[in-house]
């Protein structure tokens, strides 16, 4: 019998990938396509959902073609996606209503302040586990319904559908206007601020607070379980999973037990700690989120530390400043000097996420002197990711009461050895990279393969995990403390930049 594979579709912020994995969880092919970033105004970031779906219809066949396989060799599709990016579309025509508004978009900052009112940004945290910030979907959905004349009425009549990217893809995979399935999964729903974190259902109180009609919302399903059989792109193949990219990475790193954690280094970086069936409420700026749900089993939860700008700071260094040609060249440039020369970059481009959650903060370069060269700045760019991780790890340790003993990492930035070593030095724990850096896709594949019986159980998946690289700490504690103190001082200088009435 011909070899069988699971296809993961990773709909990311910058690109859409299809990756095929074999039974041992090994990557066998990759096809990838970038989509355009639309910046209609400062702070606004949009995607064209039609372009994204078109990319899906191209990368999936391309990945299969790359190894000369047949579509019949694909046993399941696992979908994973950039989270919180929000879209409305017309149920009848299947056409998006405007662009998708992405997770980095800050257009809802005024609305947030309004909604927070006197009770403050944590007024819904008990119900949904999240603070009010521009990051999550509900304010964005509210904004879209408010902004387009007549849209709310159409939504109430059931003519308009809402979804994050996995919902949009599944709807299109299953026929679109022609019988498309309108569903989401618990992990993505847990990022909207509309789902009750305990019941895992849309919450009437939250719907009322955000003025969102229930008729636009998809049905919430477990992350791993057969959603439907595709009729487009891979007709006849079952969609076995959908989960947010960061939750997928936790799954791909096989962090199935409470206490296990990973950090994924991509456009942004996200540290997730599995807390099992327990819903842990953070007192240190971590988010409470659903990690995954397998079929009818109880959901597993996670604490999350979100860093908005990490890989995208490297991209800014490349595209905004033009100091390098490719992201990887930042390491070459950073190695032209021995240290940061006293410069620190705090990339509060869309405010600061965890653990600060300061939406009025904006970025700074601190410690500039005439001594600073582009090499020092390249170092400061990479170190910013390290320092942000340290802040999140400290907060996570404080919340969970246990100190992290090693950091499991994945994502595009783990190709950067200088950064990985800096992380180990700063956190003072070993940093470990598994044999698949595309762990987001691997997790989606695992969850889908489990649903269709391609893999029997979680334990089998654990045995696929192997260490591909490891960096050990090697920094003088006094220097570590001094560097971190400088960083913290720089962070203070980002606060309060956007002032009321501006």
């Amino acid at each position: 019998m011909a070899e069988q594979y699971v296809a993961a579709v990773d709909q990311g912020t910058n690109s859409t990938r299809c990756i095929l994995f074999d039974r041992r969880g090994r990557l066998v092919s990759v096809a990838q396509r970038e989509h355009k970033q639309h910046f209609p105004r400062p702070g606004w970031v949009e995607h064209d959902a039609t372009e994204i779906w078109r990319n899906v219809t191209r990368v999936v066949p391309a990945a299969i073609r790359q190894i000369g396989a047949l579509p019949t060799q694909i046993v399941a599709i696992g979908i994973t996606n950039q989270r919180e990016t929000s879209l409305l579309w017309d149920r009848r025509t299947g056409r998006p209503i405007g662009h998708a508004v992405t997770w980095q978009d800050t257009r809802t900052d005024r609305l947030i302040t309004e909604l927070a009112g006197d009770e403050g940004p944590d007024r819904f945290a008990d119900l949904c586990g999240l603070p009010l910030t521009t990051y999550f979907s509900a304010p964005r959905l509210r904004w879209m319904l408010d902004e387009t004349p007549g849209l709310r009425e159409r939504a109430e009549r059931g003519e308009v559908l809402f979804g994050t990217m996995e919902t949009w893809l599944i709807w299109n995979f299953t026929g679109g206007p022609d019988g498309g399935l309108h569903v989401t999964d618990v992990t993505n729903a847990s990022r909207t601020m509309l789902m009750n974190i305990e019941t895992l259902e849309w919450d009437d109180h939250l719907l009322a607070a955000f003025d969102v009609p229930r008729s636009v919302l998809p049905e919430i399903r477990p992350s791993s379980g057969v959603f439907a059989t595709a009729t487009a792109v891979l007709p006849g193949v079952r969609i076995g999973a959908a989960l947010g990219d960061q939750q997928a990475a936790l799954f791909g790193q096989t962090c199935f037990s409470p206490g296990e954690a990973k950090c994924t280094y991509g456009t942004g970086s996200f540290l997730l700690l599995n807390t099992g069936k327990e819903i842990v409420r953070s007192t240190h700026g971590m988010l409470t989120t659903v990690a995954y749900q397998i079929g009818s089993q109880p959901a597993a939860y996670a604490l999350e530390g979100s860093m908005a700008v990490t890989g995208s700071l490297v991209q800014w260094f490349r595209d905004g400043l033009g100091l390098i040609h490719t992201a990887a060249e930042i390491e070459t440039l950073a190695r032209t000097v021995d240290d940061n020369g006293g410069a620190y970059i705090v990339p509060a481009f869309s405010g600061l996420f965890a653990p600060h959650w300061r939406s009025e903060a904006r970025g700074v370069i601190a410690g500039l002197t005439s001594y600073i060269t582009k090499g020092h700045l390249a170092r400061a760019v990479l170190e910013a990711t390290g320092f942000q991780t340290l802040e999140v790890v400290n907060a996570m340790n404080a919340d969970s009461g246990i100190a992290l003993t090693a950091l499991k990492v994945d994502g595009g930035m783990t190709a950067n050895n200088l950064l990985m070593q800096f992380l180990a030095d700063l956190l003072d724990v070993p940093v470990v990279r598994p044999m698949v850096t595309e762990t987001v896709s691997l997790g989606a594949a695992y969850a889908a393969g489990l649903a269709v019986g391609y893999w029997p159980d979680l334990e089998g998946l654990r045995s696929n995990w192997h260490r591909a690289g490891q960096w050990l700490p090697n920094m003088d504690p006094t220097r570590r403390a001094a560097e971190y103190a400088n960083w913290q001082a720089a962070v203070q200088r980002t606060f309060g930049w956007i002032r009321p009435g501006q």
Partner: protein
Amino acid sequence: MLRLLASAPNGLGVADLGNALGLAKATVHGILKTLHQVGFVEQDHSGAHYHLSDAFGRLGDTYLDPNELRSRAINWADSLAARSGEVVRVGRLVEGKVVVVHHVFRPDDSDQDLDVGTTLPPHACSLGKAVLAFDTSGGAKPRKLEAFTTRTIVDPARLADELASVRAKGWAAEFEEHTVELAGIAAPIRGLGGLVVGAVGLTGRIERICDSRLRHRTDLVTMVRATAEAIGRDLREDR
């Protein structure tokens, strides 16, 4: 054809080029296709006009950043290590030495140290032979061939024969030339324009890398070559 294209800032069509050079349309097409593949000419949005790409101006600049090579290689090197069960390295030639650009541990979770940045003697390892065989700079050829084991090739004439065979086969073998009891297999990575920018390979104990007749296992050779090809395809595709 390149001269014509260089003198036409708005680009030229196939017919223009054919007429100017007295060549058949099919011939012009063929040449353009090749030039396009190596990145020297680009098509405009309509696809009707061709013009020189800026890569042409940077002709001597075939430099590929080593960290970029690692970024492109990482997925495929991981996959090779997972499938073969062996240590995988990516290397490139720098001033007569092979510098390890990327290193993937043997997937048995044993204690191993990353050796990215260390150097290897090119004449005594498969990674080195895979790049030396395609090196045209000459300066990279080691003058004195140091012996590491009794099997190290120290005779320049024998090394030349060995490199010719690497060119013919498309991959390089290592058999106790660097370390006793270790064998290796490596294949060249071809970047833009087909230039060899480095090599990827695996090393392990002889009994795992070679068959009972001490020949390098063909299944491993196929895997290594497919890996080199996949990395090369990534490098050539979108730069």
